[in-house]
């Protein structure tokens, strides 16, 4: 066991964990941040996507010992109170979710994409989202929601 000082959603959090513990389980088990989901444990499905200093990473394959001072942002950290992030709003406007399980990861990938590329085309979207699986098959609406969010933020 080791002690880590993490910055999660803007707050300093101290956690005890063995060094190779994936960030995913630290978030879920130690910090009760259950919005980030387990899907595969090997960076194949994207359900566990969070941001490290704004860059999307698969938290299931990111050992807690490698986080250091990087700022961790989870789905719980992109909005506060009743306000939602424009990407979350776009997700609601397009009625994207079915079961909803993968959507936190999808949204985190989309937020990161739009930050880097505010006006992505179909190819950009497909590439950025290729690591996120949705078994309900909401891909069409995910693409539409990303375009909607892109248009909203361009205004």
């Amino acid at each position, binding site marked *: *066991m080791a002690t880590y000082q993490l910055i999660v959603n803007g707050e300093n959090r101290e956690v005890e*964990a*063995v060094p*190779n*513990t*994936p960030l995913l*389980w630290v978030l*879920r*088990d*130690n910090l*009760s*941040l*259950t*919005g*980030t*989901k*387990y*899907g*595969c*444990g*090997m960076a*194949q*499905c994207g*359900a566990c996507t969070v941001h490290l200093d704004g860059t999307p990473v698969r938290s299931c394959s990111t050992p807690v010992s490698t986080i250091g001072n990087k700022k961790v942002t*989870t*789905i*719980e950290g992109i*909005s506060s109170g009743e306000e*939602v992030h424009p990407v*979350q709003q776009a*997700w*609601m406007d397009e*009625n*994207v*979710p*079915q*079961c*909803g*399980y*993968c*959507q*936190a990861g999808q*949204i985190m990938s989309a937020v990161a994409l739009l930050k880097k590329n505010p006006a992505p085309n*179909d190819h950009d*979207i*497909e590439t950025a*989202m*290729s690591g*996120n*699986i*949705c*078994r*309900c*098959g*909401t*891909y*069409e*609406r*995910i*693409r539409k929601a990303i375009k909607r969010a892109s248009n909203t933020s361009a205004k």
Partner: protein
Amino acid sequence: MKTEINESKIFKVSRRDFLKSTSMSMSGLLLGLSFSCSDTSKKLTGNPAFTFSPGLFISLNGNGDVTLIAHRSEMGTGIRTSLPLVMADEMEADWNRVKVVQAVGDEKYGDQNTDGSYSVRMFFTPLRKAGATVRLLLEQAAAKEWGVDVSECKAQNHEVVHTSGKSLGFGYLAEKAAALPIPEESSVTLKSPKDFKYISKQSSIVDLKDIVTGKAKFGLDSNHLPNTKIAVIKRNPEPGAGLKSFKADKAMEVPGVIKIFTLDPPGFPTTLTKPLGGVVVVAENTWAALEGRKALEVTWNKGTNADYDSHTYNHDMLQRAKTKGKVRRENGQVDSALKNAKKVIEADYIVPLLSHAPMETPCALAHVHDNVCEVWAPVQDPQGARKALAGALGMDIKAVTVNITLLGGAFGRKSKPDFVVEAALISKTMGTPVKILWTREDDIQHDFYHFPAAQHLKVGLDENNKVTSWLHRSVFPPIDGTSDAKAKEASGAELSMGMIDLPYAIENVCCETQEATVKTRIGWLRSVANIHHAYAVGCTLDEVAQARGVDAIQNTLDLLGSDRSIDFNSLTSEFWNYSEKLEEFPWSTARFRTVIETAREKSNWGKTLPKGSGQGFAAHRSFLTYVACVVEVAIDANNKIRIPKVDYVVDCGIPVNPERIKAQFEGGAAFAASLALKSEITVAKGAVQQSNFHNYLVGRMSDSPYETAVHIIESNDRPTGVGEPPVPPFIPALCNAIFAATGKRIRQLPVRLA
């Protein structure tokens, strides 16, 4: 498989019963205490401490807050929204004043087994009646208050309005309505469809905001019990076979591991409910449990299926499909008709084992203590889970509470309670709450798989290119074989999913099966046997069209014949109409024709497409819903198959929630594309060879349709389900489109073009 339709019994339950039935605390209902209306003359609210629960599903308190019970499991279809909407509409409740509460698993709610696409079909009318009864009671209460005749009072938008214009709020009327006797069912009138406010209208799911903000609670998110331990199990790769020996020393050295012990194997066949057994690792946290399991040294026993090889097995099934089998439907003389045919089309089809792979793997939180068991789990069949838990724990069923979380996908997997039973057995041993996690590897390697299937079809044409004979042989291990070693023949119900329910007016039809022994756990996957039957039938019809030199849609319409209700019971004694009587849900060729003709029109069928592109068509009725599908593919030089456009036409009776119907069809197309293009489970030496999404491939964004247009036929027929019906026609339409684009027939899934 199903219980009969349970017409709603409209009766009063005490508040205490209502609260107990929903695990809701008093404070939950009294949260609205501070609510009041500034215009007190309108009398919107009444006694805030009073709750009116005129039945199991609806409750109204003195503040006017309405609580509606969702008793079916939410796995992405939107049912947790759609059925409460039906009640709210009939009772004239304001949807903004409605709270939806998930029921626990209990027989008193009637059928809760959320599978088979029948939630809306079964509960639409009973829940309308429940809502309409409350509406009438509120109108009667207002009439009494005003001393007028009830015919002068009309409930609308959360208040009852008198013809003079005065009104009383639902909250104010709650206590007064509760004092009235429940009206006779005959005096309750349902709304005319033209007056629907929510039914057939656009609406978002109730969990939408919680989902996009990460607040929604799925099974694995249940973390409210202190001192909860995490468990994982190492299971024999061969289902049902036991353990020879294990060494736990290294595993016990992993920090956080608390206890390691074994669960007995069920033997083989495994049954649909029993856990697989294995070596259990319990730890303080998830990572410790996983690391502990990794450090286990285990030697497994070999069982009866140690030599199971799926490639050999499927090939063997196909060989048998080519020989005369057991006749399951026979009309006319197929043998002689085929002999006399001028042209014979012959084709074989193979579909592999498939895994459900819902994004949320099986999981459950259980707490067994003081002779009670409480679980929180993503289950499709909470009553089945409750029964299995009571049996496994030797407890009275009343001592078992099954709380249903949101399901992170299911597709049939979570209709089996094995993982919930695991959690409970482990909790019992530990004496603490235990949450079980199935890793993706556990999920892919120990599923209740979709059955592998081999089919042989032979179709004869006469000198006028008329189809005179249709022979269809289907060989696959039946789901019953997972419970019963003697069950080796597909059931009539399984064959009524796309084989013996062949609707075409062909004089000589013969459907046959061969025995196939279950070698692993087989279970329902979204649309079940319709997957392989619709694939083979839909692709064969395309070959028939080609042989006849007729357009594929025209060919299907030609074969369909005149508009009629098909009396399948006279064609085969084994016909199954999804547990409904044919008189109530007829097989209407007219409805089938309409979806097909509409698809031809809406899809711009026959349009000119560039080289490497093509359109394909198929139509299929499943779960009493009629669907036609046109798929367009574009295939590049690297054989990457893209699906730019899908057109679906659906007749599901009254479209209760059109927005979610569309979502189910969009998702169904993507799910079917994933099955057809990507997925395959293979078994060697009794063990599944795939383990995670790197080798059990599933559709990603680029594999999925770019645009799915869903055209819903307007209808006043009784509503039928839409969860499964999108899947069956998509796969043959896709394969037919691939043929149109490449000239290659797809006789085996997944599609391999290279």
